[in-house]
């Protein structure tokens, strides 16, 4: 079971780059790492997914070191609307959905 650990909260200011790290020491070979964003009273929304090295899309980058025991979500130039809870999900959703664990989430607060 790939237990995940994230910081409980982070503060930032508009325009800054934010990096949120998730530790997952027991990650298995077939596990992928996925990050979700959740606003109050809404379901989580997919941000990015990766297996190793670096992945970039239009909203974020995901850095995964060679040992895959951690991953870092990077949000460039955050705005007030990026204030939300960010979850990392580690697992193989087909073979072991029940063991694919969401972290406890990191509450990001972006200040003006």
């Amino acid at each position, binding site marked *: 079971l790939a237990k995940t650990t994230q910081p409980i909260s982070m503060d930032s200011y508009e325009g800054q780059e934010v990096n949120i790290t998730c530790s997952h020491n027991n990650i298995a070979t*077939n596990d*992928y790492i*996925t990050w*979700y964003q959740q606003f109050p*009273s*809404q*379901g*989580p*929304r*997919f941000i990015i*997914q990766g297996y190793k090295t670096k992945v970039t899309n239009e909203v974020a980058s995901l850095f995964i070191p060679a040992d895959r025991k951690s991953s870092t979500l990077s949000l460039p130039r955050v705005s007030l609307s990026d204030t939300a809870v960010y*979850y990392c999900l580690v697992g*193989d*959703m*087909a*073979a*072991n*959905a*029940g*063991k*694919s*664990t*969401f*972290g*406890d*989430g990191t509450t990001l607060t972006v200040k003006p």
Partner: protein
Amino acid sequence: GAGVSQSPSNKVTEKGKDVELRCDPISGHTALYWYRQSLGQGLEFLIYFQGNSAPDKSGLPSDRFSAERTGGSVSTLTIQRTQQEDSAVYLCASSLAGGSTGELFFGEGSRLTVL
């Protein structure tokens, strides 16, 4: 609809009553997941469906909880003899193929309050 639809959005019930929560996934999505989120907490896995079968029910907290999926589409989560500790938001998600990768699309959840 375009997204995952859940109903009811809010449900208040009395302890001991049964409740049914419904999830209508995105059309064509074969994989469906139920999660529970207590106030201020992370997501707790309940059950996973691939088509109509449930290869992973490991997260159901007790035998009061059951779920089914019919026609590879709509799913119903049933909680019998509700307890106050069942109060939470129940989230449903679907994905296209249920593979190791792939994006989960979540509904907005059903908020259950047991008095």
